[in-house]
């Protein structure tokens, strides 16, 4: 009887033969993802400077060529990601299910099965993080300094504003502001209504105005977002402290922790109250900038501002 017991104990310590398959799958999976990551990096590092150059050289107002290529680049990244996902389902999860149904959870070896899954899934997450990273780097190629474009519009306006003449009497008409759409301008000499058609660059002011205003107030947005993050950070810090009290019996230590926790909670409540205020400061500043850039849209923008405050 005792011999039987020992034998079974021994056999449990031996690594089962199916473990080799799990190990092999895991190794393959790790090296597969490594190769995909290398492809991704190689592709993205080659694409980024090209995209930047394309954006600079694309004379089209809507940058259509750039956007087509940009969308194609993202398509390829996405294709790599899908490949990883499909393979994960097909080669890892299916193997896991197979052994999970075969090996009892009471078996000493079951942890080999669950470890396999955890290792593979952690590796997959690491891959996904890399994907996110490259995706963000690709996204950044869209950013352009709108101040440069804005200056172009302003200098164009300076050169044309005094060159517009009345179609009827030939009198000089002064264009007193940047018009965004076709507008009637009446002649001060003969009262004829002249149609002023803004240039393509001039019209584009409407399209870049908001983004330019956002660029100018990005630091305020960041302050607001930091405050939102702070609330979460404080919450987690508070939570960790509260867990630490579970096995603590020393009253003075407990007391100290309690004081710290109260302080954290106070800070957290402050962040909760403060975040909406910072948001309002940001939005107000952003809309002020926007109104400065396109004063004609002020009435509409102010309604949008009030709507946005509500949400």
């Amino acid at each position, binding site marked *: 009887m005792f011999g039987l017991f020992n034998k079974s104990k021994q056999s449990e310590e031996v690594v089962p033969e199916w473990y080799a398959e799990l190990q092999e799958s895991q190794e393959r999976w790790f090296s597969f993802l490594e190769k*995909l990551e290398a*492809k991704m990096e190689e592709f993205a590092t080659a694409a980024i400077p090209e995209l930047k150059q394309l954006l600079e050289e694309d004379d089209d107002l809507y940058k259509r060529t750039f956007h087509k*290529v940009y969308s*194609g680049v993202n398509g*390829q990244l996405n*294709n790599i990601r899908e490949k990883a996902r499909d393979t994960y389902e097909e080669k890892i999860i299916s193997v896991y299910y197979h052994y999970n149904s075969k090996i009892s959870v009471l078996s000493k070896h079951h942890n080999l099965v669950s470890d396999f899954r955890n290792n593979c899934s952690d590796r997959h997450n690491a891959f996904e993080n890399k994907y996110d990273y490259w995706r963000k780097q690709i996204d950044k190629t869209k950013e352009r300094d709108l101040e440069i474009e804005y200056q172009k519009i302003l200098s164009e306006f300076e050169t044309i504003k005094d060159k517009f003449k009345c179609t009827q009497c030939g009198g000089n008409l002064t264009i007193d502001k940047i018009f965004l*759409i076709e507008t009637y301008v009446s002649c001060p000499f003969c009262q004829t209504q002249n149609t002023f058609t803004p240039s393509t660059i001039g019209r584009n002011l409407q399209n870049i105005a908001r983004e330019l205003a956002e660029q100018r107030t990005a630091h305020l947005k960041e302050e607001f977002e930091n405050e939102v993050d702070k609330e979460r950070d404080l919450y987690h810090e508070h939570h960790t402290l509260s867990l630490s009290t579970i096995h603590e019996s020393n009253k003075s230590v407990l007391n100290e922790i309690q004081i710290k926790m109260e302080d954290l909670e106070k800070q957290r409540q402050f962040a909760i109250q403060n975040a909406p205020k910072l948001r309002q400061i940001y939005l107000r500043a952003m809309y002020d900038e926007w109104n400065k850039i396109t004063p004609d849209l002020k009435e*509409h923008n102010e*309604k949008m501002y009030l709507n946005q405050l509500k949400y």
Partner: protein
Amino acid sequence: MFKKLFGSLTGDNKQENQNYEQAQTSNDNYENDYDNEYQEVEYDPETLHGTHYSVEDFDAEVARRAEAWIEDERASGENVEEKDIQNIYFNYRREVYTEWNNCDSDQMIRFEHANSLKYTGIQTSGFVKVDDNNPFLEPVHGVDLRTYTAMCLKISAGVDYLEVCKAMGFEPIVWEELNTIWPQRMGEDTSFTVTTLFGQYYAENVTVPQLENLNAEISAEGQANLDRIKTDRYFYEELAGARQAAYEYGIDGAQWILDNFGINLADFQSVAMQWMTEQNQNWNSADIIAFSDYQQEKQKEYAAKFAAEQGGNIADDVNF
């Protein structure tokens, strides 16, 4: 999953709704069979409330349960904010509706669509009623939203905007103002009535007498394909999948559809809106999943085709 996939189409994906719980979409087959065989509850065609109770009673019951919960939360020291209150009401509305009508989640979603303006302040495509007193719908230079939509349809179908202005009998300058003011109203209207109604008109492919003779050129084949995507949902899903795949391979998808199937962007979008509106009105989660799967499958097929044309994907040589 549905909110994510289709939220943008139902018009209720706006911020304040993001806090709501996701729609429950799995249906008990038993319930479905039961529903098909025997219609236990009669629904009001407008409000989709059961006719065996009054709307006032329903609202009162929801309020009673929600307020009790809110009071409870507050009593235990919780900070109940406006968005929490909306969530609580939203959930109790679902609970009471499902309880009182003994219905499945599809019926519940249809009910939510029919009442989205009343309960959440946001319109759902397919359920907008035109209110003559809505200042956002006041005509601009005598042009109402329906006519503006008809003009947009012509222009996005490829008719020159100068032609459209001529047919309407006004200066291009008027069009520019229309095309500024209507979009501004869409932005300002937090109930999304202007936007949703524009979409509904777009789906109906509305026209006005002045514009009837103004048509973008369409080939016989294009016309046949257009007629087919209007009636054959699978064919529509196939082209939608193909278009998406095209964009992923750096191809202008809208142009690709025009080149290969003769359907212009305006007509395609109009049909897309038509299917979405139909989907909102006859919400059925099993169908929605089936169509979505079909579109994805087709997207993959076309992606493989585009990839082959471009000499493959960059990671094709990486194997497990």
